[in-house]
């Protein structure tokens, strides 16, 4: 459980970003953090990881108060994936980069090797282990970055616009992996995103506007509120946009965000014949 209570935060020489912010995220929930640019989404997740400290208020992760003493333990349980894959690699080979977090946690060498091989196989990156991270494509880099986090067995995964710089195929691949992690490993996920599909795959959407939680709802509800979605610079996927449009025109076939579901709702006979 992530619990933020009465958070006040201000960047130096700027107006207060958060004043009295509260957020509770139950264990195993996938929460999308959305909002206009500069609303404080990334700041919020950086506070959860202890990369920034609130001016006042408390943050508890699974009952542990986040402070100077507990921050390294909390970071051990939290994997943070940044927007630009180029800025999060430290080592000169993929293998050494995956090992970096384990080296910091004093994992024995033999254990490290075993865990690197296992995660590389799981994510299909074994062939790149001896390559320089700079020689990989954007999607490949993010996969390597995920490997570097998963190898530490985190309980919470934070994605800070991690798919925003990727091409469509790499984005789909990343989303598939996130779904898999959420479903099979029960990870708690906080995802800062502008991607409609990523939001729709999550359990809950939290809208941050001017440093306050403007809305806390299901992803579908967020897209149903067209003004709010527009304000957050969100564009629903075609299927959902069409479902919403049809409902407004008096043809309620339910809200569907997958093409297959939409087709089934529109043409049941088509599905039966198939």
């Amino acid at each position: 459980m992530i619990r933020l209570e009465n958070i006040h935060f201000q960047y130096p020489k700027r107006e207060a970003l958060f004043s009295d912010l509260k957020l509770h995220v139950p264990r195993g929930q996938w929460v999308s953090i959305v909002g206009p640019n500069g609303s404080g989404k990334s700041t919020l997740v950086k506070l959860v990881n202890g990369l920034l400290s609130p001016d006042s208020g408390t943050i508890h992760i699974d009952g542990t108060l986040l402070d100077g003493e507990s921050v390294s333990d909390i970071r051990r349980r939290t994997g943070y994936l940044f927007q630009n894959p180029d800025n999060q690699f430290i080592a000169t080979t993929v293998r050494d980069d995956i090992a970096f977090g384990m080296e910091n946690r004093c994992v024995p060498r033999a254990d490290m090797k075993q865990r690197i091989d296992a995660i590389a196989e799981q994510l299909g990156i074994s062939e790149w282990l001896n390559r320089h991270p700079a020689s990989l494509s954007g999607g490949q880099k993010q996969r390597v970055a995920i490997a570097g986090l998963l190898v530490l067995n985190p309980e919470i995964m934070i994605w800070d616009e991690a798919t925003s710089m990727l091409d469509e195929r790499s984005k789909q691949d990343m989303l598939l992996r996130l779904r898999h992690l959420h479903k099979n490993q029960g990870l708690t996920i906080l995802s800062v995103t502008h991607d409609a599909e990523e939001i729709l795959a999550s359990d809950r959407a939290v809208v941050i506007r001017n440093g306050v939680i403007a809305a806390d709802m299901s992803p579908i509800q967020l897209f149903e509120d067209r003004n709010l979605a527009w304000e957050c610079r969100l564009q629903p996927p075609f299927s959902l946009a069409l479902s919403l449009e049809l409902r407004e025109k008096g043809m309620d076939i339910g809200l569907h965000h997958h093409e297959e579901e939409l087709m089934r709702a529109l043409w049941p006979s088509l599905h039966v014949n198939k």
Partner: protein
Amino acid sequence: MDERMVMGRYVAAQSWVHQLDPRAKLTAMVLFLIAVICADYSLELAVITAFSLVILMTSGIPLRRYGRASKPLWPLMAFMFLFYVLFEHNGDVWLSIGSFTVTSEGVLLGLYAVWRMLLLVCFTSILTFTTTPIELNLGLEAVLKPLKLIGVSPQQWTMMITIALRFIPTIFEEANKILKAQASRGADYEDLKLKEKGKLVVTLLVPVTVGAFRRAEELVMAMESRGYVLDAKRTSLRYLTWQGTDTLFILLFIVLTAGMIIL
């Protein structure tokens, strides 16, 4: 990365020099430096040159590659030569125009300085050419360990070197992108005069430097989020093994350096 950037790059090959422990290579480089500084005569320099050539030729890397590594320092070598020629007035006068005199000693000392510099650059290139950045870092960390006694952290230095090495290709890539963007808007370096080229370099340096600072900030966050704490105890995926050939390699350099000091 820019293919012309030869200095400091690892060249994969299967040679006995590649197999050596980086600690042995680093220690040998220090001994070599002392030997070159102590060599005062052409005979001593010739001995060091012959010694270096044997090692360079058996390193599995073409000699011309070592030559290319010294290329960026040619202007410095030319300056050193001129400095001796212009300011050393001992020896026979070979040429005299007004207050300007060229003496035999000036030319000889200038040549010696260039010779020493060439030896140092070509031979020290063997360290980076035959050692991967990771091995080099591990070696440095081990060699610098005694500095802990005076409060200097070898881990900090090696981490800085690792990050620098990691970011060289990224920064080159970024600089290339900016160059291409400038070229696409008509600012092509090839067609410009020297003064205008200088101006364009400034417009290239500013975004690259700002970008590097931005990257550094995010990198610090990425490192912290993955549990890095400055000077905290860490384990290492890599380890070094000292073998008999490493001892032999060091001994060769001890003999060479001792010889240069005694002679």
